[in-house]
């Protein structure tokens, strides 16, 4: 008797869970109606998003989120996410946009849509100064840390020889710690991220070996939300033109925005 009751409950829960995705209208009009845009941002990933000395979120992606909310003339609700769960936040409707140093690849394009690029982002393999690594083949037999599910994870998985041990960590913090504490010999990180780590700590230098990927970051929009996507693109184009993006780039990345972006 009890078993049957349990199965019924399970069935009900499954039906409920599968139905949740149905109540979904156009994101842009929902946002404009509610006056709030929910944006998923990183909180452990300087210089894109991290907690400042005043315990407030700061960084390139935070500024970008504020800029978009400003242009949409709505309030912004920042939702801190990790690189592993940022796409599920969008696909399950917990966030309207993802601005979380998000790169584009074929797998991701199947589940979400992307805006125009808003910042460049090269990712490389890093290691100690004296490590002789110049190309993917040199990774044979080496232990390389990377953040699970990131674009550099996918790129590295494709490039690395079979004998490379890839250790995949939950978020960028754990990946960086794994290198700083000597748990891995090499790591794959964004160049901008590695620079800011080098600026913050002298524990173990990160020296760039070779690039695994050169993709800019995009704003992630839920699949099929064409109106929202067009609006975000319009805002990015405007901010590129009036120099606001370049100012943000100077502030957080110490270089102006490249002209070819």
């Amino acid at each position: 008797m009890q078993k049957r009751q349990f199965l019924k409950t399970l069935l009900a829960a499954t039906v409920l869970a599968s139905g949740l995705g149905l109540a979904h209208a156009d994101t842009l009009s929902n946002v404009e109606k509610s006056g709030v845009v929910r944006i998923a941002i990183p909180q452990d990933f300087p210089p894109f998003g991290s907690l400042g000395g005043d315990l407030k979120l700061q960084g390139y992606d935070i500024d970008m989120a504020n800029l978009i909310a400003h242009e949409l003339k709505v309030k912004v609700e920042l939702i801190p996410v990790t690189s592993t769960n940022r796409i599920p936040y969008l696909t399950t409707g917990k966030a309207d946009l993802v601005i979380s140093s998000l790169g584009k690849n074929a797998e991701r394009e199947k589940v979400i849509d992307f805006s125009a690029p808003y910042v460049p982002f090269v990712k490389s393999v890093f290691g100690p100064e004296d490590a002789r690594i110049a190309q993917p083949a040199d990774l044979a037999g080496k232990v390389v840390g990377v953040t699970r599910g990131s674009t550099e994870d996918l790129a590295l998985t494709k490039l690395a020889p079979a004998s490379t041990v890839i250790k995949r960590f939950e978020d960028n913090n754990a990946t960086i710690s794994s290198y700083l504490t000597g748990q891995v010999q090499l790591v794959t990180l964004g160049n901008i991220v590695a620079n800011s780590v080098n600026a913050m700590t002298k524990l173990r230098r990160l020296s760039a070996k070779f690039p695994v990927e050169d993709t800019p970051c995009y704003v992630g929009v839920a699949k099929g939300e064409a109106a929202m996507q067009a609006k975000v693109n319009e805002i990015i184009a405007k901010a590129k033109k009036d120099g606001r993006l370049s100012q943000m780039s100077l502030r957080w990345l110490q270089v102006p925005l490249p002209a070819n972006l």
Partner: protein
Amino acid sequence: MSYQFDFVAVFDYSSVLLAGTAHTLLLTTVGAVAGLGIGILGAVSRAWQIKPFDRIFAVYVELIRNTPFLIQLFFIYFGLPSLGFRLDEWQAAILAVIINLGAYTTEIVRAGIEATPRGQIEAAESLAMTRPQIFRHVVLPPALAKVWPAICSQMVIVMLGTSVCSQIAAEELTFAANFIQSRNFRAFETYFIVTVIYFVLAVAVRQLLTQAGLRLLGRRAR
């Protein structure tokens, strides 16, 4: 927007799931056996006030039971290398599980030992049994039998708790789930299947332990 379920997208990665399940079980088994061993040592030290081990175990139990498992794991994996003590992710995970379970079983087994009636020990003493003999034959078996259900529960809790070992890149079942989900973005299907696997594992582990208790400790271990 209607969602198209695609469970095949998860089964494409069945070898990852299988390896993850095997690693979770291995981690639990090693942790359970060694943890129970530490627990028995700690329990007898504390219950019979064997100096100086009773004090050491008291500090150990308080330290472990009042801090989160994840922090213990991070401390071992990321913290200890600063002292020149480097463990890889599996060594760190197994050590953390053993230390954690050891503290909890110390308290559980201690309760069992302290519930032994004085008269039983006095009877054993009057038969000229030595302290180790009394412990082995008179105190420990009924003590374990009394608290066996609590030990089984704790071991299942620890097995489910090993899921946080994915945070230090130990490739157990939760790692497998996050890995697959980060490749195919099928969150519902992936986590649904992994939930079912955990559920089956937990029920199986509990059944196995209950049966083992009945065999080794007799009918009271239920």
